[in-house]
């Protein structure tokens, strides 16, 4: 049973929860949802409708600290593995989990522009791996009484975005600018505003404990009196914010284009069901104080606990309003179009959380092999984790478009996966009639390069 549970956990971490790096999605404009990575990325479709609830489901898992194989490799000493792992973890080790569901998505061409609107539901969880605890528990020379959690961060949010986006082509369709406004309702949110917690020996006979902790939450306390709440107040609470995505795409010539986007620019103000967990204090513990002059020592333990509680001043505070920026993301891409059917790109992606940047780098190939089948593949280094080979495709069967992609096909080998994601969905979309110019260009490329040469390039890549 334990093995099954562990397996399910591992499976869950490796596939069901995949990371929101979007390295494969960004340049793959075969599917309309590319506008989630850059609202200015030119759409192939003339219009599309994302089928409610099934048009897009993505999940992301990223653990920059370790893979299962680092711990559970058969034939190794697990305690040595954990010791090695505890030595390799550091302040940049991080765990991210993200799920996003497209509740509704519609897009249509309007002259030189393209309009998108819809709604998504996102659950996002990110935390620093508490590497100090690993080192204390498994390094062999760690001490519980030499603990410093001053760098620990955690944030999680469950939110609904209602968005309206528009992109427009300028300069003879060379330049595309896009913007998307999102009105966000955050059902649940929690983050660590301050986490200064240390427990350190000052010699053998003293432990100095310092806490300056502020954990802010919004939403969970609603469930304490769930039956007394209006369901709409919980589903669409008064934790709202207007957030924007900005994008640009510039086609330098037939061979090269560049693009960039800046996502989730804005903040959410939390006013509903807010609760802060606070602790501030310092405590020097020199053991239970016993006055041998007294006869009765029965209450010394309780007195110590009382002192501890008073010193740290643990408390809950309800009703404090706060604002919190969403984690910003940015993409920059440079693409080389070998032909209208084959392009290669280099992509940079960063996430900015609590002032710290977490960067991804990748190269990719996009094969627009035909309207009914397009393919992408690439290699990424995601937040320091290497060897992420991604792939994806879309298959169009009449108006129905099925797509599936991941940033790391190696996730099939769940033992060594540290980063992966999975994006799958079903759209109804229409590309419209093929343009003459495109057909001519396609013909020229087919004449210049044989299909075998293309395969050779792909093989070398």
């Amino acid at each position: 049973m334990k093995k099954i549970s562990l397996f399910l956990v591992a499976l869950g971490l490796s596939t069901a929860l995949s990371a929101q790096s979007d390295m494969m999605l960004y340049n793959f404009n075969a599917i309309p949802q590319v506008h989630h990575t850059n609202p200015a990325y030119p759409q192939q479709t003339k219009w599309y409708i994302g089928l409610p609830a099934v048009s897009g489901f993505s999940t992301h898992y990223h653990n920059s600290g370790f893979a299962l194989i680092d711990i559970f490799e058969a034939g190794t000493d697990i305690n040595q593995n954990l010791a090695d792992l505890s030595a390799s973890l550091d302040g940049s080790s991080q765990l991210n989990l993200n799920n996003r569901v497209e509740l509704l998505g519609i897009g249509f061409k309007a002259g030189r522009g393209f309009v998108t609107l819809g709604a998504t539901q996102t659950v996002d969880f990110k935390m620093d791996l508490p590497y100090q605890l690993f080192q204390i528990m498994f390094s062999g020379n760690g001490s519980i009484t030499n603990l410093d959690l001053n760098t620990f961060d955690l944030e999680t949010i469950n939110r609904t975005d209602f968005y309206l986006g528009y992109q427009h082509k300028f300069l003879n369709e060379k330049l595309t600018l896009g913007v998307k406004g999102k009105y966000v309702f955050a059902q649940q949110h929690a983050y660590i505003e301050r986490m200064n917690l240390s427990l350190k020996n000052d010699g053998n006979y003293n432990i100095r404990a310092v806490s300056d902790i502020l954990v802010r939450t919004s939403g969970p306390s609603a469930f304490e009196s769930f039956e007394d709440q209006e369901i709409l107040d919980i589903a669409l609470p008064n934790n709202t914010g207007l957030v924007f995505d900005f994008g640009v795409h510039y086609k330098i010539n037939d061979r090269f284009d560049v693009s960039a986007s800046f996502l989730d620019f804005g903040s959410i103000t939390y006013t509903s069901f807010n609760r802060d967990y606070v602790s501030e204090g310092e405590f020097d513990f020199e053991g239970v104080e016993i006055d041998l002059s007294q006869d009765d020592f029965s209450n010394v333990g309780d007195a110590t606990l009382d002192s501890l509680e008073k010193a740290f001043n643990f408390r809950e505070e309800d009703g404090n309003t706060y604002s919190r920026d969403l984690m910003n993301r940015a993409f920059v891409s440079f693409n080389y179009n070998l032909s209208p059917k084959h392009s290669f790109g280099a992509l940079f992606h960063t996430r900015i959380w609590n002032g710290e940047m977490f960067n991804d780098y990748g190269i990719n190939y996009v094969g627009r092999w035909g309207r009914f089948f397009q393919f992408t593949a690439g290699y990424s280094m995601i937040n320091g984790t290497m060897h992420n080979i991604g792939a994806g495709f879309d298959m169009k069967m009449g108006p129905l478009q099925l797509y599936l992609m991941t940033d790391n096909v190696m996730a099939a080998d769940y033992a060594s996966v540290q980063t992966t994601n999975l994006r799958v969905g079903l759209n109804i979309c229409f590309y419209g009639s093929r343009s003459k110019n495109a057909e001519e260009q396609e013909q020229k490329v087919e004449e210049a390069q044989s299909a075998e040469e293309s395969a050779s390039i792909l093989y070398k890549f």
Partner: protein
Amino acid sequence: MSKLLEPPRMRKIGLLALAAAIVLGCSKELDFDMVDDIKVKSSATLPLAALSLSLEDLVTDIDDSTLVVDPNNALRIYYRQDSVFTYSIEDILSIPDQDPLPLVVDKSQPNFDLNVALGTIAGAQLYNAVFDQGRIAVEINASDTVDSDVRLAFTFRNATLNGVTYADTFLLPAGQTSVLDTSIINGLDFDFTDGGTAVNALNIGLEIIDTANIDQGNIVLCSVALENLGIDVATGYFGDRLQAAPPGDFDFNINGLEEFAGGFYLTDPRLTLVTNSTVGLPIEINTDFIGENAELSRVRLDNAPFQIQASPAPGVVAVSNLTIDPTNSQISEFLANLPNKIYYSGSIQINPAGPPPPSTPNFISKTSDVVLDFEVDIPMEFRLEDMRLDEVVEDIGGGIDNLENLDELTLFFRSENRLPFDLNLRVSFINALGDSINGFELPLLSAAPVDANGRVSSPSVQESPVVFDQDLIDDFLAMQDMRFVASVNTTNNGQTAVKLFTDYDLDIQVAMQAKGNYKINSDQ
């Protein structure tokens, strides 16, 4: 053929499939059973306790402390047990019931005088006495009945009642030959000296008042006895009576030393036996004090008998203090034994030197007594030489869990000691058979140095780690009882006498460093 299945595309797909196969083929095998082997290897250094002891607090916070503070803030032992022995008038002078005295009268000889001696105990010779209680028991027997009532007058010629010679009348009713009667003589004042020529003298007279009512030849025999005599006041020589007192015991705890035994040598050991006497006679008191310590070891005080002064006058308390010191007892050994219970017994010898001069006779009253108090009032100036504490804490082995997950455990003891004595602790692990299987030594306190006056001059700091290696941990877990043997010595291994002052104190810090090796899945 669809475009997807055209040869170039088939080749691409084949290459991708091959790559996937290589990737999957390289995958390593996972073994989740290994989770059972995970061990948390960590350590923690935890302060356990900060113990403090202030002599000032010790003295002031404990009720009924035997430790008191001098004006110069030095500690003293003060203990007083009142009324260890109490002797009242019954223990010193009592008059037994007297045998009946025969007095014979008849018609021809109607008067009868009798001079006899009062019966006493232990050769007591009374000069004067006032009885606050007593009665005269009279039995009249005639050889024949009388036709009319016959009155008989009884007289104590050497006794007065309210200033008048005591006389009483008894009646032999008509038609009877005998009668029993009593007369209360409370307040009767006797002069037993017969004009200064005798002691214990009783002059008794009997007379037939109604001689006409008695026939010739009818002989009347009166039997007179003094009974239930209780003395109000008396003078004389009360004899050489030896009177034992009921034995008893009392607790004698010096705070802080209750559990220790032996090795306590006071520089100036002494105690005082205080007597308060309102009895006008010399008394010698023999006492026997035996001290028993926590180990049930007994030492006898072995002090000499002593004399207490006679009260100079009725109602005046004569206080006699006997100091018991090494010159007249074994008090050094007695106190060194650290008694926590003292058993006592004793007796008094009155008039140990024989009769007093007539000019200063013994006297006593019914409120007179002799009370002996036990008092210790000595400075805490002492040396300790191997003063011991031996305690066994039973059945503590079974309640200790999880120590098997420790690779090593170190206990740290740090003392900052402003007390002038060492404390070394020997801890033994006792198994179920009562055998000591392991243990450790802990030099817990190092004596603070003292100046020439025996006063602590600076604190002494000592830090002692006790390392529990795996063997010691194993034996600790196998232990059932734990035995603590403490040995305490004053500065210089018990050779230097020290004094205790209230500003002495002691701080002990105890910490634990545990190196754990905790197997998460302990079911395996």
